[in-house]
C-alpha cells in the first residue's frame, strides 16, 4: 500500500514519510548511476509542463527511463494548445487516460491540488506558481543527509527569502528535524513574518560573517533582477550576497554549499573547485529521490 497517492505539498508528508522516501532513494542510487532496472517497465509517465522547466522535466524523465518506464513529454507550447481554452480539469482528465502518473508544472498556485482531484492517476507537483515544489524539497533534504547530517543541523539560507518557494518549503521541512536556521537576505527580500507564525523552530536572522564558522550547510538562492527598482540597486545588493573562496575562509572544513540552480552571479565559479561545492551533486540526487516517488505512486 502506497504511503501517498499524490504528492502535492511537502506539508502533506510527516517526518516519518520524509525519512521513508529518503531511505528508498538511497536504494535507487545505483540505478540512477546506470545499473539496469525494469521496475517501471510498461508504465507511462506524462510530463505535463505548462511552463518551461528543462531541469525538473529532465530529472523526472531520466528517473522514469532508468527504471525502464516511458515518458510522454508535453511541453509548455503543446500544453496550451491541448488546452485551447479548455479547463485544466479537462486537460488533466484527458492526459490521465494516457498515462500511469502525471507530473505537472503550472503557473497558478493550487493547480496541482486541482489536478489531483480530477486525475484518474497519481499527480506529482513539479511547481505550482509561487506555491509548492515538494520534490525539490525532498532532494534538498536528501543532499543534506548524504553530504552533511539532518539531525542537529545548522544551516544558513541566503538570498531571496521572500519569493523563493524552495526556501519556504525547505524551512518547513527542516523544522521537523530540529535544525538551527539562519536567515541571510537583503532587507527587501526578508522572509515574510507571516511565514514564521505558527512555525515551531529555531529560526533567526543573521549575517553570514557571524555564522560562517559554525554552519554545516550554506543554501544559496538566486536574487532576481526584477525584484529591484533599478539595475544599480540590484548590482549593489547582488554584489554583497556573492559567495567567493574569500568569504569561505573561516568556514568549517565540512561545510557544504547548495543551490537549487540555475545560478547567475551568486556563487563565484572558483567555489566550484572547493570541497564545499555540492550543487551539482544536488542535481544528481534529484534522480534517486524522484525514482523513490515514482515507484511509490505507480507500483501497488
Amino acid at each position: 500500500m502506497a504511503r501517498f497517492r499524490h504528492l502535492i505539498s511537502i506539508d502533506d508528508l510527516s517526518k516519518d514519510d520524509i525519512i521513508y522516501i529518503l531511505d528508498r532513494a538511497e536504494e535507487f542510487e545505483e540505478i540512477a548511476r546506470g545499473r539496469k532496472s525494469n521496475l517501471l517497465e510498461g508504465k507511462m509517465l506524462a510530463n505535463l509542463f505548462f511552463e518551461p522547466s528543462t531541469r525538473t522535466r529532465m530529472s523526472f524523465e531520466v528517473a522514469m527511463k532508468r527504471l525502464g518506464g516511458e515518458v510522454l513529454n508535453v511541453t509548455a507550447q503543446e500544453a496550451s494548445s491541448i488546452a485551447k481554452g479548455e479547463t485544466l480539469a479537462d486537460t488533466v482528465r484527458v492526459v490521465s487516460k494516457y498515462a500511469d502518473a502525471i507530473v505537472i508544472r503550472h503557473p497558478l498556485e493550487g493547480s496541482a491540488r486541482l489536478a489531483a482531484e480530477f486525475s484518474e492517476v497519481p499527480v506529482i507537483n513539479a511547481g505550482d506558481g509561487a506555491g509548492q515544489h515538494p520534490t525539490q524539497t525532498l532532494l534538498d533534504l536528501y543532499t543534506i543527509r548524504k553530504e552533511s547530517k539532518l539531525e542537529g543541523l545548522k544551516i544558513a539560507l541566503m538570498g531571496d527569502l521572500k519569493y523563493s518557494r524552495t526556501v519556504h518549503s525547505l524551512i518547513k521541512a527542516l523544522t521537523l528535524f530540529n535544525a538551527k536556521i539562519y536567515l541571510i537576505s537583503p532587507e527587501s527580500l526578508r522572509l515574510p513574518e507571516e511565514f514564521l507564525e505558527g512555525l515551531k523552530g529555531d529560526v533567526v536572522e543573521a549575517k553570514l560573517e557571524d555564522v560562517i564558522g559554525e554552519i554545516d550547510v550554506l543554501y544559496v538562492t538566486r536574487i532576481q533582477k526584477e525584484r529591484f527598482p533599478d539595475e544599480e540597486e540590484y548590482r549593489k545588493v547582488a554584489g554583497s550576497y556573492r559567495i567567493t573562496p574569500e568569504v569561505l575562509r573561516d568556514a568549517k572544513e565540512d561545510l557544504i554549499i547548495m543551490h537549487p540552480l540555475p545560478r547567475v552571479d551568486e556563487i563565484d565559479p572558483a567555489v566550484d573547485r572547493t570541497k564545499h561545492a555540492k550543487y551539482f551533486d544536488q542535481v544528481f540526487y534529484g534522480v534517486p529521490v524522484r525514482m523513490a516517488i515514482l515507484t511509490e505512486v505507480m507500483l501497488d
Partner: protein
Amino acid sequence: MEKKLVISKIKEGTVIDHINAGKALLVLKILGIGPESRERVSMVMNVPSGKMGKKDIVKVEGKFIGEEELNKIALIAPKATINLIKDYEVQKKFKVTLPEMIEGILRCPNGNCITNSREPIAPKFRVFLERDNVVAKCYYCGRKIKEVDRFIV
C-alpha cells in the same frame, strides 16, 4: 406607555441570536437570503446585550435552516446561538460550531490561485481559530485569510 422597538415572536422558523454587532447582513448573505428570497425575515442590529455589549438578531419565519448551513455563520459570528421555533416555543437551541472546511462562501484573495480561474470548482477553505479569531486557509493555494468578512461572496 414607553415606546420600544421590538420584533414580534415568530410562530415557526429559525432565530439566530448573539450575532456580533453589525454582522447580521453578512449572516443573511452566508445563508443565501437576499432580495429574491421568499421567507419573511426580520433583523435587528446593535441591540444591547449583557454578554456582548451589542449584538444583532435575525429571525427567518417559516423555515428551519439546517444545522450544517447554520454552522457556516460561525465564520463571522462564532458566538451565535440558534433557536428553532415551533408554535411559538423553542424546539431546539444550540450554539454554532465552526466547520473544519467551508466551500463556496469565501473567495481566495490570491489572484494567482487556481480557484480564481475558469475551473469547475468552488473555492474551498480550511477554517480554524487563531488567538480567538476565525482564520481561513485556501485548500488549493494555501493563502491565509485573517479578515474573513472581507472575502465573503
